[in-house]
C-alpha cells in the first residue's frame, strides 16, 4: 500500500481545509475541498452498499443507500467538518435469502444507531464514582494501555479471570472473541438475552438431536399452529417469517392455508391468525398433547410415527390417556369441542406445522411444553418436509460454546469484565442483583456505543464503530433452509474516534506481556473474514431433514405438569405477562426516536409504557384508559397507565418490555416502567433460563390519567369533526 494514495491525500486536504474554514468563513480553500467527492461518489447520486442488520439475532442482509453529505466528525481527538459518503436509508437486500429485499420496522430504524446524538465519539475513562456515569475522554493509546495492563495482571495471576459478556449473535465476530479468550486461558464468552429460547434449543436437542432453533417453511405450510410464538413480530427470525407468511397468504390458486395462534394475550402475530385461541398461561403444552391424543385416538396417526420425540413424552405410547379434550379444557380453558376439531384439521390438512416460542417456554414447565410440541410435529410428519419445520445446517452451535450469565454470576467474580452491548442491569430481574455483582468486579470495560444501565458501571469505554462503519457478519441459526452466512464491508467511513471491537481485542492481544499462544492467525477482523468466510467454509449441507438422533435416549420421558407460579393466587390474582415490544424488543432499541414515536400495532401507544387489562378487570378496579395502576409482585412494584384490551383475559395482565430505562440516551431515559424489574427470579430447571412468564401480580389504582399514556390520535372519520380536527 502506498503511504499516500489519492484517497488519503483528499482526506488530509479535506480535514485541513475544513479546519481552516472553521477559523475563517468564506475561505476559498474550503470551497474547493467541499466539492471533492469520495472516489466512488458523485454528489447527488446514490450508491447502494451491503451490510448486515445487527439489531436482533436474525442476521438479515440489508443494503444502505449511500450519498455524499457534509458531516461533523470527531477524529483523532479533534472535531471537524468533512464531506463523505453517508448511509441515508436501509432496505432489505434483494439477493439475501432471509430479507429477500424486505425489511422489518426495526431494521428501517437501524440507521439511527449511527447518527444518534448520544453516541460515544471517543474512548473515555471513569472519573466519578461507579454507576454515576461520569467519564473523561482519553486517547486510544491510553485506553489500550489501561486495558492491556488489566488483562496482563489477570493473566499473570493464574487462570485468567476474564469474562466477555455480549448478546447472542452467532457469527465470526463471536468466534473471534471466543478464540482470543481461549488463547488467554479465560473461560468461554458469556451471552445474555432475556428472550433467548435456550429451552427450545434444549428440547430440540433431546427430540431431534439438534441444539438449535427451528426454521419454518411457512411458504408451503397449509396449516400452522403457533403456541405463543410471536413469529411475525419479534420471535426468532421475524422478517424471514413474514416474507414466507406473505407467500403463504398469496399462494396462487390453491386452498387457503389456516393459521391458528394459541396464547393468553393477543400479540401482533395473533391478530393475523385465522383462529385465535386463548389459553391459560403455561398450559400451551397440554393443548399440544390434547391434539396428539385426539389424532392418535382417531387413528389419524399412530404413536410410533413420532419416534424419539414421542418417546420423550410420558404416556405417549399409550396414547396420552390423561389428555382427553375434556381434561385439556379443564387445564387450558379451550373448549373440548375446539380441541377435537383443531386436532382433526391439523392431522388432515397438511403439510401442517406447529411451533412454540417465547412465553410458553418461560415457565417452570417450559421444557415439557416444548417437548410436547416437538412430539406433535413428529407425529404428523412435519419434520424436514416441505411446509414443515427443519434445521438450518450449522458450522457449529455458538450457543453451545457460550456460558450463561447466571453460571458466571454463580462463580467467583471475574477480575476483568468486557461488555459488548449486553445490558443485564436493565434486562434482568432486579432480584438477580446484577448491579451488586458488577460492584464486585474490579475492572469493567465496555465496547458499546451508548452509556446504558450496565455500561454506566464501566471503568473504561471503548466505543465500537456502528455496524454501517465496520466489517460485519452474521451466521444465524435459523430462518432459511440452507446455510446462510453474511459478510459485508463498511458502508461508510467512521464518523468518530471509534474502533472496531474485534480489532481492539487483536491489538490488545499483541500488546500483552505474555503473548497469545498460539498467536492469532489474523491481524484484523477484516483479515479473519477474508480468510475464514469463503464458500468452502460453509458446512456441507447436512440433511436439513430429520436429523439422525445418534445418541441413545438417556433422558427419561417427561411428564407435562401445570406451571409453578410465583405468588399465591389469593394475594396476587393476575398472571403477569411481559412481552417483547414490537418497537424495542428487550429494550435495547428504546434509544431510537423513530421507534419511540412508532404507534404500537395494537394500542397505538407511543413514548409510553402501559399495562393491558381486560374490560372486566378494569370494571373491578374502577379504571379507564390511561389511569395509573400499581402492579405489585413478590419481587417489587411499578406504576404505569392501563390500556383496556379485548385481547387479554380477566385473569392476566400484560406489559410491553422496553421502556423504563434509567440511563439510556436522551430519548429513553426516565420514560415509563420496566416490567422485567419486578419479575420473580424463577428459573426453568433444565436450562436455568429465567421463567419470565411465571410471576403473579396484584393491581391497584393509584391515580387518575396523568397524560403519561400517549396514543396516536389519527383515525379515519366518517364525518370530519371540525371541533376536534388536528388542525
Amino acid at each position, binding site marked *: 500500500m502506498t503511504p499516500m494514495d489519492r484517497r488519503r491525500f483528499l482526506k488530509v486536504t479535506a480535514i485541513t481545509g475544513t479546519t481552516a474554514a472553521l477559523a475563517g468563513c468564506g475561505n476559498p480553500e474550503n470551497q474547493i475541498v467541499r466539492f471533492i467527492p469520495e472516489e466512488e461518489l458523485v454528489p*447527488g447520486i446514490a450508491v447502494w452498499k451491503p451490510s448486515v442488520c445487527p439489531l436482533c439475532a436474525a442476521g438479515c442482509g440489508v443494503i444502505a443507500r449511500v*450519498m455524499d453529505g457534509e*458531516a461533523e466528525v470527531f477524529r483523532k481527538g479533534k472535531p471537524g467538518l468533512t464531506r463523505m459518503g453517508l448511509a*441515508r*436509508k*436501509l*432496505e432489505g437486500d434483494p439477493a439475501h435469502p432471509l430479507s429477500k429485499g*424486505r425489511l*422489518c*420496522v*426495526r*431494521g*428501517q*430504524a437501524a440507521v*439511527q444507531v449511527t*447518527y*444518534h*446524538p448520544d453516541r460515544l465519539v471517543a474512548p473515555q475513562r471513569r472519573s466519578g464514582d461507579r454507576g454515576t456515569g461520569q467519564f473523561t475522554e482519553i486517547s486510544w493509546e491510553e485506553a489500550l494501555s489501561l486495558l492491556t495492563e488489566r488483562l496482563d495482571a489477570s493473566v499473570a495471576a493464574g487462570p485468567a479471570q476474564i469474562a466477555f459478556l455480549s448478546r447472542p449473535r452467532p457469527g465470526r465476530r463471536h468466534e473471534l472473541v471466543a478464540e482470543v479468550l481461549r488463547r488467554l486461558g479465560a473461560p468461554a464468552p458469556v451471552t445474555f438475552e432475556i428472550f433467548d429460547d435456550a429451552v427450545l434449543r434444549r428440547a430440540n436437542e433431546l427430540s431431534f438431536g439438534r441444539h438449535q432453533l427451528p426454521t419454518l417453511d411457512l411458504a408451503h405450510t397449509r396449516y400452522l399452529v403457533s403456541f405463543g410464538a410471536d413469529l411475525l*413480530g419479534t420471535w426468532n427470525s421475524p*422478517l424471514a417469517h*413474514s*416474507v414466507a*407468511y*406473505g407467500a403463504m*397468504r*398469496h399462494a396462487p390458486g390453491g386452498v*387457503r392455508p*389456516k393459521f391458528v395462534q394459541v396464547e393468553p394475550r393477543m400479540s*401482533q402475530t*395473533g*391478530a*393475523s391468525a*385465522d383462529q*385465535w*385461541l386463548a389459553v391459560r398461561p403455561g398450559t400451551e403444552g397440554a393443548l399440544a398433547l390434547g391434539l396428539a391424543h385426539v389424532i392418535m385416538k382417531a387413528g389419524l396417526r399412530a404413536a410410533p410415527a413420532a419416534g424419539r420425540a414421542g418417546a420423550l413424552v410420558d404416556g405417549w405410547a399409550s396414547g396420552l390417556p390423561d389428555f382427553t379434550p375434556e381434561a385439556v379444557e379443564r387445564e387450558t*380453558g379451550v373448549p373440548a369441542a375446539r380441541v377435537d376439531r383443531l386436532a382433526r*384439521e391439523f392431522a388432515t390438512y397438511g403439510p401442517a406445522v406447529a411451533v412454540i416460542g417465547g412465553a410458553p417456554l418461560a415457565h417452570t414447565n417450559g421444557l415439557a411444553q416444548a417437548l410436547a410440541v416437538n412430539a406433535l410435529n413428529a407425529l404428523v410428519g412435519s419434520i424436514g418436509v416441505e411446509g414443515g419445520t427443519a434445521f438450518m445446517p450449522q458450522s457449529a452451535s455458538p450457543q453451545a460454546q457460550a456460558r450463561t450469565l447466571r453460571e458466571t454470576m454463580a462463580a467467583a467474580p471475574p477480575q476483568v469484565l468486557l461488555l459488548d452491548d449486553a445490558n443485564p442491569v436493565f434486562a434482568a430481574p432486579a432480584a438477580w442483583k446484577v448491579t451488586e455483582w458488577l460492584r464486585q468486579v474490579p475492572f469493567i470495560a465496555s465496547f458499546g456505543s451508548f452509556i446504558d444501565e450496565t455500561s454506566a458501571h464501566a471503568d473504561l469505554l471503548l466505543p465500537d464503530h456502528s455496524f454501517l462503519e465496520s466489517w460485519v457478519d452474521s451466521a444465524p441459526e435459523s430462518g432459511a433452509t440452507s446455510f446462510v452466512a453474511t459478510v459485508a464491508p463498511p458502508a461508510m467511513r467512521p464518523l468518530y474516534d471509534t474502533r472496531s471491537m474485534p480489532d481492539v481485542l487483536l491489538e490488545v492481544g499483541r500488546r500483552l506481556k505474555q503473548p497469545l499462544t498460539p498467536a492469532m492467525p489474523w491481524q484484523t477482523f477484516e483479515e479473519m473474514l477474508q480468510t475464514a468466510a469463503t464458500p468452502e467454509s460453509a458446512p456441507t449441507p447436512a440433511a436439513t431433514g430429520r436429523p439422525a438422533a445418534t445418541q441413545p435416549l438417556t433422558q427419561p420421558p417427561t411428564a407435562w405438569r401445570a406451571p409453578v407460579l410465583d405468588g399465591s393466587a389469593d394475594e396476587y390474582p393476575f398472571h403477569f405477562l411481559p412481552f417483547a415490544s*414490537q418497537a424495542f424488543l428487550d429494550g435495547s432499541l428504546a434509544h431510537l426516536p*423513530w421507534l*419511540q414515536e*412508532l404507534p404500537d*400495532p*395494537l394500542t*397505538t401507544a407511543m*413514548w409510553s409504557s402501559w399495562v393491558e387489562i*381486560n*374490560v372486566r378487570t378494569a370494571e373491578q378496579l374502577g379504571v379507564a384508559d390511561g389511569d395509573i395502576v400499581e402492579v405489585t409482585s413478590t419481587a417489587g412494584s411499578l406504576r404505569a397507565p392501563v390500556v383496556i384490551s*379485548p*385481547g*387479554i*383475559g*380477566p385473569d392476566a395482565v400484560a406489559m410491553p418490555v422496553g421502556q423504563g430505562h434509567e440511563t439510556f440516551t436522551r430519548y429513553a431515559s426516565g420514560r415509563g416502567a420496566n416490567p422485567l424489574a419486578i419479575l420473580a427470579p424463577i428459573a426453568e430447571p433444565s436450562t436455568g433460563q429465567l421463567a419470565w412468564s411465571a410471576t403473579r401480580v396484584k393491581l391497584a389504582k393509584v391515580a387518575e390519567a396523568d397524560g403519561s399514556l400517549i396514543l*396516536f*390520535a389519527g*383515525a*379515519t372519520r*366518517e364525518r*370530519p369533526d371540525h371541533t376536534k380536527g*388536528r*388542525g
Partner: protein
Amino acid sequence: MAHRWGMVVDLDSCTGCEACVTACHAENNIPTVGPTEAARGRAMHWLRVERYWEGDFPDVKVKFKPVMCQHCDNAPCEAVCPTYASHQTDEGLNAQVYNRCIGTRYCANACSYNVRFFNFFNPQWEKPLQLQLNPDVSVREVGVMEKCTFCVQRIKAGKTAAKAEDRELKDGDIQPACAQSCPTGSIIFGDLNDHESRAARFTHSPRGTKLLEDEGTAPKVTYLQRQSWNEPDTQ
C-alpha cells in the same frame, strides 16, 4: 397515455408490523415531534396502521388497515385550498406544493381520512440525526401542511432512469418506500392506466373496497378484504 398512479393494500396478508410506517419516515424526512407534542395529537405519520377489534374475549379478532393519503380523484382537500397548494397532478397524484401552502389547515379538516399533517413547529433533528435525511425530499417548515406523496421522488427517479435507458417504464420499476419494505408484499403500487399492472388488476378484484367510498371521494387506494378459512371439501 398518461400514468395514473394507484395502490392496492392486501389486508389478508398485512400483519400490522409497521415496517411501512418507519420506512415512510426514513424516506420522506418526516420529523419526530417528541412526547409532549405527540400527546397533543401532533405526531406525524403519513402512513398509519389502524386496528379494528371485533368480538369480545376470548372470541376476538383484529383487523389491521394501513391508511395513507388515498389520492382521491375527487379530493375534498383540493377544493378548499385557497392557494391551490393542494391539487391534482396530470398523473392523478394528490400533490401538495409546500411553498404555496399558507397553513390555513382547511385541507386537513376537509380530509375524511385524517392523513394530512401540519407542521406546528420547525422540524428538529438533533445533531447529527440530520445526516439521515433523504436529499431527494425537501424538509418542510413551520406552517406547512404535508402528507403522503406516493413517494413522488421515486416516481420521478424511475421515469428518469427509464428515459435514460430509452425504454418504457415497467410495472414494478417504481416502488414507494412502504411497498418496498413491506415484509409480506401486501402493498402494491402501480399505474392504473396500465391494465396489465398488478395494481390495476387487483383494483378490480372482487375483494377490493375503497375507504369511505360513499363520500364520493373516489380514492385511488384499494383495500383487498381479509379472507377467512373455510374447511376444504375433503370428498
